[in-house]
């Protein structure tokens, strides 16, 4: 098990690095660099060249990449070229927002979707089940940012219940943090919840047809109890798999939602860093995002094993499970 963990960790780091190389190469495609941005409209070729050599941008790509990698390993990514802020610090402070958004909506949508999905599965042949299905379909069809806009109009502007934008850090006022994240999380959750609900329903229907449920009923359980005791966990195994698949989309969603709600998260840092050609920042943020997704993936894998002893055993033996 420990060896397995180590192997996974190495794989994780390798994948994240691969991601950073891709990002590094992609960045080289971009027109203009941080020197053009710093010097702005009135730059001259000489001043540009001077600034580039001053910033070390004239070194070969390989050297630049490995310098960055070295900094990364040392945990000190240095400062952004133009703004001069500490990159590691900056990422740290913004990571909180993005993680809160992503995990918040993951949590909300898990809870809602398990309830709604189970309900829809149990009521599959009835009108009430069909109604949940319809809501699900609608939820999947609504663009996340649109949902955000509509929520702002209704909840913030018309009802004045929650702030329309901005973010208050935890350290400052946790109550306000929650208030400022409520709408973004809600907007982000709509689509995810809808998709998850479908999965939960399908997983639940699957479980409902499983003989072990009948066994539980033969022991004297009623159907709802049998589903609760035996069904939910079994269904959750397949839902965890889907959750992994959805993470990428969820993080993409946070970028858009950060834009709608003006939240200082990693997404907006990335966008502004791309706009400002802050190569170091872009690279580091991309690395962190990739690492985050992979780590969550990795955790889900572990959760998968924790939930399902068959997987655990198969992994111990190093076999594939189908």
């Amino acid at each position, binding site marked *: 098990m420990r060896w397995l963990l180590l192997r996974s960790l190495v794989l994780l780091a390798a994948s994240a690095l691969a991601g950073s190389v891709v990002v590094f190469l992609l960045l080289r495609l971009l027109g203009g660099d941080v020197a053009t941005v710093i010097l702005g409209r009135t730059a001259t070729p000489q001043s540009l060249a001077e600034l580039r050599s001053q910033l070390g941008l004239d070194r070969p790509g390989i050297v630049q990449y490995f310098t960055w990698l070295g900094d990364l390993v040392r945990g000190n990514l240095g400062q952004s070229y133009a703004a001069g802020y500490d990159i590691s610090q900056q990422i740290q402070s913004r990571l909180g927002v993005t993680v809160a958004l992503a995990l918040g909506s993951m949590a909300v949508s898990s809870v809602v979707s398990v309830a709604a999905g189970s309900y829809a599965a149990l009521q599959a042949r009835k009108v009430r089940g069909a109604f949940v299905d319809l809501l699900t379909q609608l939820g999947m069809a609504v663009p996340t940012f649109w949902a955000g806009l509509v929520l702002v109009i209704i909840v913030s502007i018309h009802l004045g219940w929650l702030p329309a934008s901005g973010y208050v850090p935890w350290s400052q006022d946790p109550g306000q943090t929650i208030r400022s994240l409520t709408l973004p999380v809600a907007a982000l959750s709509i689509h995810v919840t809808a998709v998850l609900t479908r999965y939960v329903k399908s997983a639940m229907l699957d479980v409902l047809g499983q003989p072990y449920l009948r066994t539980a009923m033969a022991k004297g359980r009623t159907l709802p109890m049998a589903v609760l005791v035996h069904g939910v966990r079994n269904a959750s195994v397949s839902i965890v798999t889907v959750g992994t698949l959805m993470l990428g989309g969820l993080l993409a969603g946070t970028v858009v939602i950060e834009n709608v709600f003006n939240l200082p998260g990693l997404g907006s840092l990335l966008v502004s860093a791309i706009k400002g050609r802050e190569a170091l920042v872009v690279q580091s943020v991309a690395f962190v995002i990739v690492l985050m997704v992979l780590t969550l993936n990795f955790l889900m894998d572990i959760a998968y094993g924790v939930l399902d002893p068959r997987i655990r055993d198969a992994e111990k*033996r*190093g*076999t*594939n499970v189908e």
Partner: protein
Amino acid sequence: MSYIVETKHLSFRYRTAPAPSLVDVDLGIEPGTTLGLVGESGSGKSTLIRVMCGLIPVAPGAVRYQDRDVVDWLQQDGRTFRRQNQLVFQNPASSFDPRMTMATALAEPVKALEQRTPTTSELVSRLEQVGLNAGVLNRHPHQLSGGQVQRVAIARALLVGPQLLYADEPTSSLDVSVQAQVLNLLMELRRTLGLTLVVVSHDLALVSRVCDRVAVMLSGAIVEAGPTAEVLREPKAPYTQQLLAAAELVSLSQEDANQ
């Protein structure tokens, strides 16, 4: 040596399996005979016939078909080898592509092995041989009963004129009534075509009426082999004795022990 197919010190282990599935298997089959392969689930029966008909590469050990190594056959003249060695599977429903009509499915081996498209009359005559008519040709597997599909599977195997037919639990998923039909068909084909037959089964009673020789497998090894009557009368291996006792318990003809 008069064996049509022979295995020598065959051992095999699936890459992902914890234990070997074949352990030093030595087995020879004389042409024209019927061999019954019995043993509990997971004892390696299917693996053995897969290896024998060249679906799994062997190592260590060797399989010789007509005194020639199967690996060699497959490299030099794979088509001939495959034509002569055919398989019928346990589960009729899954042994046909659900998207193909029976006509297409039947034509497949001929196309693959003889590079030609069989005529409809050719197919029909084969179908009649297994007791079916042209009506099934346009159907999909799910539109036929289990017994019918298993017959088509046998017809499919026969179309390329095999010498050796392996049947992996050909009746275990069929009802008793249909089981008898399929077994009768196999016995008749053996008689009329002079096929060499290998029948995998866990049912000793069945094997005893169909096969002239029997091999008993346990954990990948052959624990006992010989003429059926002999093995049934005087089982030597303790495992065979156990099997017999179990079969005796559920025999209909047996006098009432539990009364």
